[in-house]
C-alpha cells in the first residue's frame, strides 16, 4: 500500500475565491461586512434602519442571501439601494463563489459600503470567508443569553456583536450582562453594540461606527 501525504485545506477553493473577492473590494475602495445571525434576529430590519440612517451620507450596496425568495431584496430595493439577491435553493450558507457571481449583477462603482446579508444560520456561515473585511454577528434578546456558548464558532469568527431587540429586554428571559459575558468568553476581542429597530436605540452609534470604518479604510 502506498500513501500520498498531503496537507490541503478542505475549504481552500473557497478561500482562494474569497481572496479574489477581497482584491476586487480593495480596488473599489469598498468596506465590506458579512452580516450573520440565526433566522429572525432582525438582520434585515437592522439593514433597513442602517440604509435609512446612512442615506445621503454613505453610498451603500447590498447582497442578500436567502434559501428561497427575493423578499429581502425587495425590502431593500424600496430604499433605492443597489441590491442583488442570491437564492441558495436549500444551501445553508453563502460561499465566496456565489458572492463573486453576484458581483456581476450589481454596480459597485459608486458604492463605499457593501453589506452582505448571509443566510440566517449560526453554524455554517462561520466557516466560509466571502472576502469581507469582517463578520458582524447579530444576536437578539429574544434568543436568550446563551447563544454564544451554544454556537461559539460564529461568535469567535466575528469582529462585532450587535445585540438587537434591546427594547424587549424587560419582557424576555435574557440577562444582558450574561449575554455580553458569554460572548466575550468565546471572543475577548469582540466589539459589542446594542440596537433596537423599533425604538431606533443604538442605530446612530452603529452607523457612526460604520462611517468611521469606511473613512479609516480610505485613509489606509
Amino acid at each position, binding site marked *: *500500500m*502506498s*500513501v*500520498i*501525504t*498531503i*496537507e*490541503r*485545506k*478542505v*475549504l481552500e*477553493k*473557497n478561500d482562494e475565491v474569497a481572496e479574489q473577492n477581497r482584491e476586487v473590494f480593495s480596488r473599489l475602495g469598498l468596506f465590506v461586512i458579512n452580516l450573520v445571525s440565526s433566522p429572525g434576529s432582525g438582520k434585515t430590519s437592522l439593514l433597513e434602519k442602517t440604509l435609512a440612517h446612512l442615506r445621503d451620507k454613505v453610498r451603500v450596496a447590498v447582497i442578500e442571501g436567502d434559501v428561497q425568495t427575493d423578499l429581502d431584496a425587495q425590502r431593500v430595493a424600496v430604499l433605492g439601494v443597489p441590491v442583488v439577491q442570491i437564492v441558495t435553493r436549500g*444551501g*445553508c*450558507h453563502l*460561499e465566496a463563489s456565489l458572492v463573486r457571481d453576484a458581483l456581476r449583477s450589481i454596480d459597485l462603482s459608486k458604492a463605499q459600503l457593501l453589506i452582505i446579508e448571509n443566510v440566517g*444560520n449560526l*453554524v*455554517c456561515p*462561520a*466557516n466560509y470567508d466571502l472576502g469581507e473585511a469582517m463578520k458582524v454577528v447579530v444576536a437578539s434578546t429574544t434568543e436568550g443569553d446563551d447563544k454564544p*456558548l451554544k454556537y*461559539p*464558532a460564529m461568535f*469567535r469568527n466575528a469582529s462585532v456583536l450587535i445585540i438587537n431587540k434591546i427594547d424587549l429586554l424587560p419582557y424576555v428571559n435574557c440577562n444582558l450582562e450574561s449575554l455580553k459575558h458569554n460572548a*466575550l*468568553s*468565546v*471572543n*475577548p476581542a469582540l466589539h459589542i453594540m446594542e440596537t433596537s429597530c423599533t425604538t431606533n436605540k443604538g442605530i446612530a452609534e452603529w452607523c457612526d461606527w460604520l462611517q468611521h470604518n469606511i473613512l479609516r479604510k480610505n485613509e489606509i
Partner: protein
Amino acid sequence: MHELSIAQNILEIVGEYLPSDRRGLVKTVKLKLGEQAGIVPDSLEFCFNSLVEGTNLRGAVLEIERVPFVVRCNSCGRSSISESGLMMCSVCDGADVVLISGNELQVTAIEILDEEKIEA
C-alpha cells in the same frame, strides 16, 4: 449542515491526485478535523459514503482524526484543552489566551492499494 459540500470538496481534492482509472484503489482518505471546526463527524462520514457509492471511489473510507481545541495562556504560560470552545485557560481561568488548535479541516493523506493486489 454543510457536511455534504465539505464532503464534495474532499473528493475534489482526492481527485486531483489520482487519474480516474486509479481512484478505485483509494482505501482511506485521512482528514484532520478540529473539535471547533463546526463539522459533525458522523454527518460528514455519512455524506462521504453516500457520495463515493456508485462512483469509481466506491469503498474508500474517510478516516477522521479529531484535533482538540487547545489554547495557550499568556498569563500562566500553560497550554490546555478547552472542551467548551471558550477562549479561557483551563489551568488558571485567565482570558488572555492564544488559539493553538481546534479549527482544522484538512485532508492529510490518501492511502492507495497496490495495483497488483487488486489484479490478483
